[in-house]
């Protein structure tokens, strides 16, 4: 039976009906991961032994009737900035390369309670700072749709793992677009919930007023199921919100008749790739045909979102990353002369270039004499941006636009010009500043076959509106663009049927031949590590 093609919910049902054993699913994913990882590098840690042990334990809990939920037994991957007790949690940084937390993040705990099997921790931009997963200490992740391109970032590993069918879903985190943009680049459905919906306890913080954890999935139904499993009020996260509704799956209905959808004029103008624009307009027309009312409008303040974001995010990051000092955990420099020297050397050796850049900018904008002009100014801008969205939502139920101005760029092309890279976040960033929910849905491919995603933005706590619109889009297009990646390694398309892999004589043989094919047939790719200061 070909399991890897199934959605998480479909697999969950088969496991529940005893058509598939949990161990079978886990083994299929592990085999797939071992075959592709030398090329794709989605995982920082693939926990084979742990996953197989979890599979047995979960199967028992299913058999005893304890676990009845839709995600029981379904293997998932977790972004490596989410703490898991005893499990290497690195944030793709050298400074945490040996760190094993003493507790598990609340969102992960909730998945474990629901019977998830955690296959491993996925690659990311270092400390979530980046848009391509190229700033990772563990090397870049490749886009499964085209290995010469980035998967996006910072949840690039999570997205690549799902797109390449190395797991059935994943958790990512989103501070400025880090779930939505890579989901768009990898042809997946990714959701950043309203700020405060998912507990941040155990999420290693980057920008505390902006961070949210969310699902990366193959379709909208999976997204809703996962969100329902991880959303909660948590006393351990003082920014977490007690919501009135957690039944997100009740929004999985087709029908947008009368829904008013606004498309910001500023999102669809200069700077947007024409092929991306085409796909977005097409998607809007699909919703229009289903009864929605589509209208362009002036969102305003769009161009101020990026500078405001980078001031706020860097400021918060500089404060959040002060704790990495070599004292209690993580990397400590080998030779030092006194405490302050130890701090400086540890951090300078342990952090990559992009992280250092943002820490310095953040320290500067918070420093005496500049705090008002930069940090407070940015916070006032943030208030204005929220007001602009509030005004928009007086008229519209939903805002629609692209998730990114382009499809996935090529590897090695983004890090030389950080400012240009930051400008790619234009559509996603303001959603974090305003604390709103945002969802990326696959709506097309460009002429190179790279996925295009549209972004749906809802008012605070209106995830159900997003889910309903996205689900309607799926119904109307028969999930046309929710297709797994055909991973092309050398001249061979990687076999993606569990049967093929088990039948062919030994995984190592296949992996070996694939690896050697990759070395001789692909042109040299020189990904910038982004670590040179």
């Amino acid at each position, binding site marked *: 039976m070909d399991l890897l093609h199934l959605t998480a919910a479909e697999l969950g049902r088969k496991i529940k009906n005893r058509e598939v054993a949990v161990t079978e699913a886990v083994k299929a994913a592990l085999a797939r991961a071992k075959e592709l990882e030398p090329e794709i590098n989605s995982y920082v840690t693939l926990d084979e032994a742990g996953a197989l042990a979890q599979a047995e334990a979960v199967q028992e809990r299913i058999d005893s009737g304890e676990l009845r939920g839709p995600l029981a037994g379904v293997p998932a991957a977790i972004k490596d900035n989410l703490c898991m007790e005893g499990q290497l949690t690195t944030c793709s940084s050298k400074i945490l390369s040996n760190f094993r937390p003493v507790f598990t993040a609340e969102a992960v705990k909730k998945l474990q309670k629901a019977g998830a099997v955690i296959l491993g921790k996925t690659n990311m931009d270092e400390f979530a700072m980046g848009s391509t997963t190229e700033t990772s200490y563990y090397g870049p992740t490749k886009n499964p749709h085209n290995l010469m391109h980035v998967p996006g970032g910072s949840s690039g590993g999570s997205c690549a793992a799902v797109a390449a069918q190395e797991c059935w879903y994943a958790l990512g985190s989103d501070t400025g677009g880090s779930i939505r943009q890579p989901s768009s680049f990898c042809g997946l459905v990714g959701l950043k919930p309203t700020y405060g919906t998912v507990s941040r306890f155990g999420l290693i913080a980057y920008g505390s007023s902006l961070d949210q954890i969310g699902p990366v999935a193959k379709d909208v139904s999976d997204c809703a199921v996962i969100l329902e499993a991880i959303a909660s009020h948590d006393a351990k996260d003082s920014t977490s919100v007690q919501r009135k509704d957690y039944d997100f799956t009740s929004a999985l209905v087709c029908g947008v008749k009368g829904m008013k959808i606004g498309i910001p004029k500023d999102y669809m103008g200069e700077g947007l790739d024409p092929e991306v624009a085409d796909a977005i307009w097409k998607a809007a027309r699909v919703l229009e045909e289903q009864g929605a009312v589509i209208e362009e409008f002036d969102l305003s*303040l769009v161009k101020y979102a990026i*500078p405001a974001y980078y001031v706020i995010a860097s400021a918060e990051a500089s404060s959040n990353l*002060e704790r990495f000092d070599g004292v209690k955990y993580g990397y400590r420099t080998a030779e030092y002369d006194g405490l302050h020297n130890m701090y400086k050397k540890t*951090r300078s050796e342990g*952090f990559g270039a992009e992280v250092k850049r943002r820490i310095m*900018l953040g320290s500067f904008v918070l420093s005496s004499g500049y705090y008002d002009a930069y940090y407070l100014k940015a916070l006032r801008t943030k208030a204005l941006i929220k007001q602009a969205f509030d005004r928009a939502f007086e008229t519209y139920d939903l805002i629609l636009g692209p998730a990114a101005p382009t499809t996935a760029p090529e590897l090695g092309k983004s890090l030389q010009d950080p400012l240009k890279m930051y400008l790619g976040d234009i559509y996603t960033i303001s959603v974090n500043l305003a604390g709103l929910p945002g969802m990326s849905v696959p709506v097309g491919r460009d002429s190179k076959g790279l996925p295009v995603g549209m972004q749906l933005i809802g008012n605070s706590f209106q995830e159900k509106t997003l889910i309903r619109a996205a689900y309607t889009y799926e119904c109307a297009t028969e999930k046309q663009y929710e297709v797994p990646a055909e991973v092309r390694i050398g001249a061979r398309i990687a076999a993606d049927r569990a049967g093929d892999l088990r039948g062919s004589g030994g995984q190592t043989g296949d992996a070996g031949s694939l690896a050697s094919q990759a070395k001789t047939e692909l042109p040299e790719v020189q990904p910038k590590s982004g670590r040179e200061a």
Partner: protein
Amino acid sequence: MANKISDETIEHVGILAKLELSGEEKEAAKADMERMLDYIDTLNELDTSEVEPMSHVFPVHNVFREDVVTNGDNQEQTLANAPLRKEDSFEVPKTIG
């Protein structure tokens, strides 16, 4: 308006950030920061005189809990990650004297 970052400023930022930069890195950092600050200056086009700075999007204030320890004694686990440990303490270079 071009922002100029002086050597002293970069030194100061290095102290705040607890980062040690080589001569080359300092020059690169200066150039990076100047560019970013020039870009950030576009915020000055906005009239924000009537707006309060907003840190948290929702009116959630003073979220307190009772001062009671609920995640008790995991001393061994906590020390397990220590780069350098001495008995029940994290060992660090001398801080006083």
